[in-house]
Each structure stands twice: as C-alpha cells, then as structure tokens.
C-alpha cells in the first residue's frame, strides 16, 4: 500500500478532539480510503510505526515527563506533525494551573481539596511521571500545523486530514478558523 500513513495520540487532553474527529461521521470512510490509519487511541496499534508515518497528530498538551516522551517520539516518527485542539496548540484548559504553579496545583488536588481524606498526600511513587508546567506541543518539539479549537469542529478536522492525506497543504483560515 502506498497510501500515506496517519497516526495520532492523546497526551494531556480530554479526548474531546478525537471525539470531534469522529463527528465527521461517514466522512471517516473517505479518510480511510485516502490514507492508512495506523496507531490511534481508537485503533488497535498503540505506537506510531518505528519506520515512521507521514502525518502524526497529537491531542493534548505536554504536562508531565511521560507526555514529553510521547511528544518526542511522535515528532521523531512523523514527517508532518499536527497539534490538534487548544491544549496541543497553547496548553488549553489544563494550562490554567500554570497560574498557580505545579506545587500549589498538586497540593490542592491531593491534599487540600474537600473530597480528600484527611492525611492524604501527594503521590511520589518513582514510577509516576513528573508533573511539569503545562506546555503547548510547539514549546517542546517543532509543529507543522496547529489546529485550534476546543474542540476544532469536525469539518475542520476532515478538511485538514483530507488535504494532508492527498499530499496537499491545508490552509486553516476563514470558515476553518473560527470559534463555535
């Protein structure tokens, strides 16, 4: 098969952008016709091909060390990298915790919140990823296309994927660059 390969992953996101992708409904058949959907959170493969893919898509921001690994890996294995949705593009809603900092956010979530049991502590298992400032993908690796929206609407996602699948450069403007 010489169809271009597309892979995607989500890091610090809510999965809403992938849901919006699915909102393109039957048009996904067109995408599958044009391209080879490889690893995505909604298909079976879990990692982008080691041999590389043509288009890599990331939803969600880079908010801990594990996210960083995923972002670097996707960048390394993709010819074109797309940041999908506001979290990927600028940090999104999770970036609000940048206003108070990692320490205060962890303390609030794990110790001070009303729903915490008394004596709760911030988890410090060495296997856990280290939390960092909430960052946009482009702060960590170079990004080729930013698709803003929370989430971007299905029409926009379809347009971007269809263009990339046909080897063209999507122009995200006018009706594809707006807020609901």
């Amino acid at each position: 098969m010489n169809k271009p390969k597309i892979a995607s992953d989500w890091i610090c996101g809510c999965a809403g952008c992938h849901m919006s992708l699915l909102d393109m409904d039957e048009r996904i058949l067109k995408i599958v016709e044009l391209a080879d959907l490889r690893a995505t959170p909604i298909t079976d493969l879990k990692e982008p091909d080691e041999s590389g893919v043509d288009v890599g898509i990331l939803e969600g921001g880079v908010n801990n060390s594990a996210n960083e690994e995923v972002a670097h890996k996707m960048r390394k294995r993709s010819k074109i990298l797309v940041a999908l949705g506001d979290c990927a593009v600028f940090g999104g809603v999770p970036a609000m915790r940048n206003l108070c900092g990692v320490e205060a956010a962890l303390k609030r979530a794990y110790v001070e919140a009303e729903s915490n049991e008394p004596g709760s502590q911030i988890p410090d298992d060495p296997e856990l990823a280290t939390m960092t400032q909430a960052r946009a993908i482009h702060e960590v690796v170079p990004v080729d296309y930013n698709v803003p929206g929370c989430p971007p609407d299905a029409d926009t996602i379809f347009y971007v994927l269809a263009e990339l699948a046909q080897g063209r450069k999507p122009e995200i403007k006018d009706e594809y660059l707006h807020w609901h």
Partner: protein
Amino acid sequence: MLQITINGKQIEVPEGTTVLRAAEKAGINIPRLCDHKELTPYGGCRLCIVEVQGVRVPMASCTLPVSNGMVVNTETEALKKSRKFILSMLFSERNHFCPFCQVSGGDCELQNAAYHEEMTHWPIQPGWNNFVVDTSHPYFVLDNNRCILCRRCVRACAEMAGNFTLSVAERGAKSLVVADTDVPLGESTCIKCGSCVQVCPTGAIIDKTSAYQMHDKDLTEVKSICTGCSVGCSIKLMVRDNRIIRIEGGWHGSVNHGVLCEHGRYDPMNESRKRITTPLMKKDGKLEPVSWNEALKAVADQLRPLSGQKDGIAAIVSTKLPAETLTAFKDLFAHNEIVTTTEEGMPTASVTKFAEKQGSFEGKLDVLSNADTVLCIGVDAGRTHMVAGFMFKRNMPKGTRLINIDPEENELNDLANLYLKPKAGSDLALILGLQAVIVKEGLGRSPLALPDTDSLIQKAVEETGISRDQLTQTARVLANSITPVILFGKGITAQRDENLVEELYNLAVLVGAVDSERLGLLSLKGEANSLTATLLGLDQIFELNGHKAVFVALGDDYVSRSFVERVSKVSYLVVQASYESKLTAQADVVLPVTVWSEQEGHYINLDGRVQKTQKVFSAPENVRDNLAVLNELATRMNISLESNWKQAILARKSSVALN
C-alpha cells in the same frame, strides 16, 4: 478637501480626517484594536500601522492626519508580518483563555484580528503571571487576564460619562487598569453607566447579566428609545426568545451618541415587579380574574354616565406613555375637569406658561458640549437625567466650570467649582441677587433694567443665607463666561411660578447664555413624555373633591405611596397598568396593558426631539396595548377620539423648538 491614495484608490477627504477613517471611506478596512469611532484616537495598540510613501517607518493610521497627496499602502507583506507581531505580543502579555470566554466566537475583537491574520497559534507563549480578576461590581467583571491595555475603557469613562473612574496604574509591563486609586470597582466612584463594557474589545470587562447568553451575531438587534426619563437616549436592544439580553447605548443616537446611564441600561433588566396577566375585577372585596369583555363593559357602564359631570371622573395618565396614548387619553376624558398626569405638570407647567408669553426660549442639549460655564439650579444631574450631566462633566478637565445651586445635598457638589446651598424657597431672591450683582458691576452682555440693585443684593443675602462674597463670586464667574449655559429642573419648576422661569431667562440673557446665536437655557423636565403632556394641556395639579370615579392609565410606570393615598378613597377606581402595585391592589377594575418594549409610540424629549420607540416583543396573551384599551373604552362610551397627536401638541407654544 485633501487627496489621498490608499492601496491605489484615490479619494478626497476633509482636512483633519485620519488615514484610518479615510480608508474606511474608501471601503478599505485597516485592522485596529484601540481605536473606537466614538472615542479620541489613542495610537497605542499599533495594529493599524500603514506604510506612507516617503516615510521611513510605518505610522499608526488612527492618529495620522491625512496630508494632501499622501500615498498609503495597508497590505504589504511587511505590514502583515508586523500585525502578526503585534498580536503575538498581545497574546503573550496576559492570559487569553479563549475556550471558555464569553466573547470567544465572534464577539472578541482580539480573536477576530488574529483570525484575520490567519494566526492558528501564539508564536510566543505567555509567562503565565496571575492577574487580578475584580468581581466586586454588581454588574461587571473586570478580568485583567484578558486586558490588552487599549485604554478604550479609560477613554470611555472620561469622554462618554465624564466620570474619570478608570485609569491606568504603574507603567510599562506593570500597567494595570484600575478604578480610582486602585480600589475594587464595586467600591469605587463608578456610576455603573456601562460605557466601559460597551467599548471593551475583549472579554476583559464583561456584563454579568448578559454573559454566556448567545453571541451577538445570533441575537436580534432592535433600535429604540429609552423611556426612563426626558433625556430620551437612543438605545439598542439585543434580544432573543422574547426577552432582552442586553441594552446598549445607541451610537446612532443624536442625543446620547452611545452613552447610557445605569437606569437606562439596567432598570429594565432588574424589573422585579409582578406582571398582571389578566383583567381583574373586585367581587366581594376581592380582585377576581375576568374576561376583557366583562371588564371593559363594567368600566364603560360605570364611567359613561359620569362623563362630563361635576366631580364625576378624575382621569390621570402616566407621562411614561407614548404621545398617541396621551392624546387619546385626553380626548377620552376631555369633558371632565380633572384630566392630568401623574407628574401634575411639576417639571413643565411653569416653563410652558412662560413660553406662552416668550415663545420658544429653551435650547438643545448640544449647547452643553461647548459651554465654558454650566450653572445647575434646582437639579441634581448626578442623580437624575444623568446623561445630561455627562455632557458637561466630561468637559471639565478642558476647563468647563460647574456652578451648582441646590438647597439639598447634591451629588455634583464635590465636582462643582462653586456650590451654593440657599435656603429652600429663596430661589427668586437668589436669581434677582445674581442679576443685581452683574448689573451693578457692569458685567452684563445686554441691558437689564433693575430698580435697586443694592436692595436686591441685600435681600438675596438675607433670604438665601448665602454670603455676599459667595453671591458676588458666583455672579462674576457666570458673567465673565463666554459660552455659559443655565440648566434648571424640578427644584425650580415644582414651585409652579413662571416668574421664576422668567427671571432665570432674564439672567440668561444678561450673561449672554441666550442671544441671537445661542439658546443656553434649558430645563431637564421629568419623565419621557413630560413635554408632550404639558403641550397637550395635561399638567394641572389634581385635588379630589368627592369624585365618584378615578381612572388611572399607569402603563408600566411606578406610583408613589402618597399618590395611592390620594386616590384610594374614591368609590370607583380603574387602573390600567402592567405591574401589580399598591394602586392595583386597591382598584375596582384592573386592565393589564403593554410595557414600553411591547408598544410603539412617539416621545418628545426635554429639548424638543420627536423620537419613536419600537415594539420589540409581543405582549403576553391576555394583555392589551395601552392605546387599544383606550380606543375600546371610547367606543363603548360613545366618545370619538378625533385628535391626531401631531396636531394636538401644537395647541400650546412649546418652550423649546420641536423637531
């Protein structure tokens, strides 16, 4: 006229036009943020920069005056790059969370500007510093995370409302929009006019009552007139689903040019009275719902025999109702002695009486815009008719002086250059005293014969309790002005003495406020249609003397406790009203009628402008139009309502020219 070529298009513009406005005239839109068509140009955001042939660096088109033969380019690649830079700087400065912002999605000028430049991300991420969100104000939220420091709000507070509450503290990257000396907005000198909200390009200042209730592009816009008072500001209603989402000052308005006061903007939103949704009739001491037919029949049957009889019907109408309704009301009850309004002519009777002798003598509100001294007497322009107050407050930094005269505590005393508190009821002596000082010192612009200036001055000092020095100083400041204006209100007119009005007029002529070129004398009157009512002759004080029936056409107006007491002892009370009140509780028949937004009609404001309100909504099902009810009653009472309001108002001489 000057010639300018923009993007190859050549047009002519008058001298003083900025390049930005010239481009608009040529149909070319230059992106901009800090500029607003109703505020003085600032030149701060730098988004509007253009390339001018012969000039090394780009110039801000919003502040650049056109010079003859100028050649301008607005769409070079370098300019597009510069615009992206400006926007990236702005996004990196504060914390712009579009996902959940109330104006995101079409109502944010910053977002729109970025999308116009096809920016899909922020080239430079923000530093994520925390900025103050001030929620202390009852109506607005000031969120500094969204502020782009365009200073539109500062300029609006200064140039529209003349209140000067908002300013910028610190400088450079530490600049912050603050209220007064950096106090919470809710504890500041803010008078809640909402001018800042109306002009803010982002979601930095948000109106709490209308937030998240649909984007502007999906709301319906209706232009109308505010019926809150006799200033008659133009308003723009943003509506959906048969309710008002937001009221804005109409930029198109010749009276207010976009500014509104707290009452015009929020009173309709704060309406908490209970709507009457069906005709009611008292049966066995209790008000029961009845059909329109039953109610109207009962009223007509009761009033028909009493019409024209001595001490028969006393008819009182609200001056908040349209001219058409007032005219019909007058005709309907024409044969009765008492046909008057809830205001009883307090703001207008003496003024109209004087006009019978003098002709039109009052000026237009525009005369305030270049007044160098404003004398306010008998009016608190900081509390009522506030927009009229804005018109001179905003010129005070440029040198306009305010002289405030009020026996009671007055909101504007802190602001006034001079304020006098004469004893109540001493106005005539005071006015004559001022005239006397001016004549005695030879400062008058035109001759005025005064018998004995010394004794007038003495009398003024004795009766008012004001010192001789204060009287003299006030007179001198007024007389030495070049473009003085005298504003008066109910404090004077409620005394129903046209002699007072005449002496104010004489004072105005004496100091040159009124001459062949200017009419710098005006009264602020009262409600929306006070002037119309008085022109229709509906301005007498009523005194019930065993009247058998009282008909009150209240509309959506309020009614005072003393009014309720005065009419409650009558044997048959009919009230035509929109909302429940102590008056309707006492009535024998209650006829539910439309509110201001459910009817259209004409209003004449305090300076003679004839304006029309629009019908924005349909009335609730069982509620009828004010005019329709009167027409229906007239038919049933065999009275024909012949008059056309346009002719009817000409019956008396108006104190101000009508247009």
